[in-house]
């Protein structure tokens, strides 16, 4: 009756003050959303209010459910059922679900839970049910400081998302670093900014004294590599995201650009430009040791490691047009993988290793697409006058990029099936997103 409690190591989440314990039911999920083929009908989910005693608990409980609803709606795979249509009123775990009532309003999944406040911390326990099978699928207990209630809500949404889709990682607790831009011409100001994926907890990391571009965030989110123009010298800099402490990365005579962290956080790839050509270099950010991986006879840029760090994808104009290549991590055996019409740029390897996302330009139109690392299965996901610079969501199911909308630039993301494009709200023009791994 009482399910076995299992603690899961949730590294980054625990660091941010949210502790989670899975309550695993012996019953395997029968409600499983197949998303490989593209899900056109979102699954209706009923998220019932968290039961709590006291006004503060009730208010926080409502706020948390609202965030979970927004998260599940964002990915496009779920449709929260409006509370007004609920037939059964739930009161925490004291009420057993009457599945017939939930079937009547077409809810396919159901959550039920409680919230408790103890001093400055909150605890949420909730259960997930498969309505049609009439079964308890899963349960989870989450504890966090009150100030991290949004994070707790995102973890709850991740749990529902993962359990129902079979994905191993949700993206709702992620953050996005990007370049914020205001003004034009001499009044243009660019600043590095960071926000939760849903636009909350937004703040600026630089104050706009220098032109900044192309942030790349380290795996734990502690350091940011980016391009800054200081005294007419564009160079890659490294900044600690907590203290803002900044240093130039390496000693190069010319422009360095396109930084990309390795998945283990020990190396940074970048391209080093001299006389209108650029070579790909691997840097050790601690020792500043550098190693050229391509010879610098062409425009080789936009490098990105494979998740296991054995290979690197990059773009090069060595064939005469920009195309995507893959080489071994030591720079040997470069092979071109794009052969269709148009030019291909800014390849980024999915954290699941299965796809490489890119920007494509064909007949004056920009596209965001994905291709298999062996060059097969190219699919275009988004298009426009300007869509550029894909970055993967944690879990590798979603791609974010920036889109020019009139004179403004906005951040958008899309499911890899090409459905559910969503705009991410930012306070000003937004370019060059970097989704936290």
């Amino acid at each position: 009756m009482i399910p076995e409690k299992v603690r899961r190591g949730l590294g980054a989440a625990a660091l941010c003050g949210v502790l989670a314990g899975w309550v695993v039911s012996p019953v395997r999920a029968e409600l499983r959303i197949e998303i490989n083929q593209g899900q056109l009908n979102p699954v209706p989910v009923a998220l019932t209010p968290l039961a709590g005693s006291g006004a503060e608990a009730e208010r926080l409980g409502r706020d948390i459910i609202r965030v979970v609803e927004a998260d599940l709606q964002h990915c496009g795979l779920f449709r929260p059922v409006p509370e007004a249509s609920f037939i059964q009123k739930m009161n925490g775990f004291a009420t057993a679900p009457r599945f017939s009532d939930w079937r009547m309003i077409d809810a396919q999944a159901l959550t039920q839970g409680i919230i408790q406040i103890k001093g400055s911390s909150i605890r949420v326990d909730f259960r997930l049910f498969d309505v049609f099978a009439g079964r308890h699928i899963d349960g989870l207990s989450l504890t966090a400081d009150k100030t991290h209630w949004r994070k707790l809500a995102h973890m709850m949404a991740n749990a529902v998302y993962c359990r129902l889709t079979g994905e191993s990682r949700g993206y709702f607790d992620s953050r996005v670093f990007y370049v914020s831009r205001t003004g034009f011409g001499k009044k243009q100001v660019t600043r590095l900014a960071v926000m939760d994926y849903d636009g909350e907890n937004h703040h600026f990391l630089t104050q706009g004294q220098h032109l900044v571009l192309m942030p790349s965030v380290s795996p734990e989110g502690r350091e940011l590599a980016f391009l800054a123009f200081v005294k007419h010298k564009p160079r890659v800099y490294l900044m600690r995201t907590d203290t803002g402490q900044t240093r130039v990365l390496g000693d190069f005579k010319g422009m360095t650009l396109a930084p990309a962290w390795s998945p283990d956080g020990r190396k940074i790839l970048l391209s080093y430009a001299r006389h209108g050509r650029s070579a790909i270099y691997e840097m050790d950010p601690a020792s500043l040791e550098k190693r050229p991986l391509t010879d610098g006879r062409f425009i080789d840029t936009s490098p990105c490691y494979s998740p296991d760090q054995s290979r690197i994808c990059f773009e090069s104009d060595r064939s005469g047009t920009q195309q995507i290549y893959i080489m071994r991590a030591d720079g040997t055996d470069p092979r071109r993988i794009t052969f269709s019409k148009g030019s291909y740029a800014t390849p980024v390897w999915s954290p699941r290793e299965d796809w490489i996302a890119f920007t494509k330009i064909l007949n004056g139109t920009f596209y965001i697409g994905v291709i298999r690392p062996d060059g097969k299965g190219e699919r275009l996901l988004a298009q426009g006058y300007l869509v550029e610079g894909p970055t993967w969501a944690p879990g590798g199911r979603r791609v974010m990029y920036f889109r020019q909308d009139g004179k403004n630039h906005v951040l958008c993301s899309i499911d890899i099936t090409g459905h559910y494009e969503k705009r991410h709200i930012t306070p000003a023009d937004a370019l060059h997103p970097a989704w936290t791994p």
Partner: protein
Amino acid sequence: MNNTYKLMSAAAMVLLAACGTSKQQDGSAVTDGSAPAPGTVEDFNVNAGDRVFFEFDKHVLTADAQRTLDHQAAWLMTYPAVTVVVEGHCDARGTEKYNLVLGEKRADAVKDYLTALGIAADRIQTVSYGKSRLEDQGTTEEAHTKNRRAVSVVTIQAQ
């Protein structure tokens, strides 16, 4: 080498012809107020021309661009204390990373041309802004043409 000198003197003559009518030989203030004072940033921008334009995805200097650079070189010869930053720019129809390198190609093409005309390389710095500092935000071909440019920004050293 010989050709370079010929080009140089021709450029200087063109420049003198262009400026002769609007400037006082003794350097006193121009009464009509329409012409910039010689040796100023405005003088360079107006009388030499501060920018050259490129074709799509190209860094080759067109005949028009070369004429402008001839004027720039002659002006820089006349004012040897002036230093210049050549900014390479691109239109919005390429990706940011590629355009940064293309912009550098354009700035380098200008620097190479100016140094071939005898301007000391250490007076010229280059920088590429790619497409991050557009001149025109429009989406027309006219806007793209304006954006594909290299701009020579001169700094007059304080005496």
